[in-house]
């Protein structure tokens, strides 16, 4: 008997032939909790996955204007940042309930295969690292937990210097902040950077700039939530 990772209610199945004949993955969230999460659907910005009426949203126009060539080819996000997601992220990331990563696993992997595995031939999946101090505080890196679910996962070749939490800065401060990353090794195949939330896109672009400068052909972002 499995239990919902969020509300701990027992999940019951209608047993069908499919359960017997195929290796169907077991649900990790119960029906009511699953429906509280909303997938990003409909018209989206082609660059950052934000729900938008235009092909490229205002934010991305700004990025294109600001940086002559945007180092980030595109970002794909899976869920929208609603109340339920906010609570789940808070418990998972800040309280440290690691197991909750499996609540997203099924959809996160499925969407990855749809967008990347079938499109790209060779690539590496790299999580955005935490600074040593933050890692010590939390005990684990949430982006790493997500990246481990995906194929061609590589432990991060990036390093992060300690800075204040992104979530505590204003939008302007975030965009203007210094690049906190260091590159340890170079890489010459397309890279998919994995992170939990895409808010302004600054973090991903900082990492992407470094990678591109060292000869990486293309950098994509794959994030759980579009904030």
């Amino acid at each position, binding site marked *: 008997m*499995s*239990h919902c990772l969020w509300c701990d209610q027992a999940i019951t199945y209608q047993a069908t032939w499919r359960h017997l004949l195929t290796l169907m993955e077991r649900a990790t969230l119960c029906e009511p909790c699953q429906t509280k999460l909303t997938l990003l659907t409909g018209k989206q910005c082609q660059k950052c996955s934000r729900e938008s009426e235009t092909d490229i949203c205002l934010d991305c126009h700004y990025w294109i204007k600001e940086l002559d060539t945007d180092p980030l080819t595109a970002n794909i996000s899976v869920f929208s940042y609603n109340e339920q997601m906010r609570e789940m992220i808070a*418990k998972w990331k800040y309280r440290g309930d690691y197991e909750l990563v499996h609540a997203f696993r099924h959809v996160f992997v499925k969407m990855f295969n749809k967008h990347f595995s079938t499109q790209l031939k060779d690539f590496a999946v790299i999580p955005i690292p935490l600074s040593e101090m933050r890692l010590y505080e939390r005990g684990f890196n949430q982006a790493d937990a997500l990246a481990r679910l995906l194929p061609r996962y590589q432990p991060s070749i990036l390093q992060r210097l300690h800075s204040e939490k992104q979530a505590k800065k204003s939008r302007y401060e975030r965009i203007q902040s210094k690049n906190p990353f260091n590159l340890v090794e170079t890489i010459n195949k397309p890279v998919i950077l994995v992170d939990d939330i895409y808010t302004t896109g600054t973090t991903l672009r900082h990492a992407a700039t470094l990678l591109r400068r060292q000869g990486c052909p293309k950098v994509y972002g794959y994030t759980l939530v579009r904030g």
Partner: protein
Amino acid sequence: MNEKLSLNPKVIKQIAGKRLLRKELPLDEQTYRSLIQMNILQPIQSIVKKAFHYECQRCHNTKRSLFGMYPCALCNRMHRYCRKCIAMGRVSDCERLYEWHGPEPIWSIHEQPCTWDGELTLEQKKAAERIVTAIQFKEKEILSYAVCGSGKTEMLFPGMSYALQQGMRLCIATPRTDVVRELTPRLRQAFQSVSIQALYGGSQDKSGTAQLIISTTHQLFRYSDAFDVVMVDEVDAFPYHKDMSLPIATKRALKPSGTMVYLTATPRDEQKKKIERQQLPHIFVARRYHNHPLPVPKLKFAFSLQKNLVNNQFPKSFLRWYSTRKHDTRQVLVFVPTIQLAKSLEQTFNTIYPEIKSSAVHSEDSNREEKVYLYRQKKIDILFTTTILERGVTFPAIDVAILHAGHHVFDEAALVQIAGRAGRSPDDPDGEVVFFHDGKTEAMVQAIYAIEAMNKRGGFT
């Protein structure tokens, strides 16, 4: 020994009587090390392996689905952690919990702690004196079985005063957050010279250094051997009787020599059996403090109840009752079984009677404190609620209705408690209580029987 003396007494109060994680200890690395060396701070294993399960030593969770594993970036190993009490900071294999075994903090002795100037009725006085005796002779436990609206809180005052006069440390615990919020201002008023802190999920100050702590039973997970007297209000309330870890934690918070006082208007079967077998000393208070009988619920059959509720409509009998009440100036409190219904029925009501101020509260409502406050101020005429307001709250003059009283959330205890919300004020002692149902359930029959029996014991016929 020098460090021990240099420790601020306030810091000792923050640590003593608790079970804390390293990051909850207000100590720098050096003091921490020397306290460990002196055995004043003793580490205990945080998750213990038992024969067939694990047990979290903070919240006593043993459920397999509420343990998880995480890869620790510090020691490159998988650690088991408790998912149940994670909101209080993660307890994992990687860390220890710490208990204080140094000198006990000294609590002040109050000569005249009680500043309440009301008077107890004869019945209340009898019960209050019994509680004082129990504390005086360090009896293990006592149950105060007092009907809804008999003034349970006031009955505690003499016992609390006695304990504070002896320099004891006290805790008033309850499973319900709303009850903590309701009790805190009343006790602050009644014990003005005593340091009081309220602990609940969203409370600001969690240091827990006061002599008198008012806490939800969940917050007691951090405590161990802390109090001389623990008074558990509404012991039969959800989730205390369902979640085995709460009684364990509450007992752990009490010192071995301490006294546990249970308060309830609706004891569970288990407690009733113990009373019958004389294993649990108890006192019974059958009269309300204003000497009027408990209102006996009326049953009203509503033929198309289920169908109406599915369509978010009111049954006709409810609307008829609502518009022809004897005292139509009274506010109305309507209990419904689900959050969804509370919200949607409130909207329907608003379209039928746009001139009447209505509102809905439920456990997921972030404005619930404010709405209850407005209702108490008579700024809202009719309030739709789930069972969160079934107990521990007092509104002076209201009529009470339950829509779909046959739903399984309304068990006997809940029905008795809900009926007990009416007629609580001496100025208006006979509020109406109506159960709308589409078929009598055992719970309804038993609840009415229990209320009548209590009235009989109270001398009303």
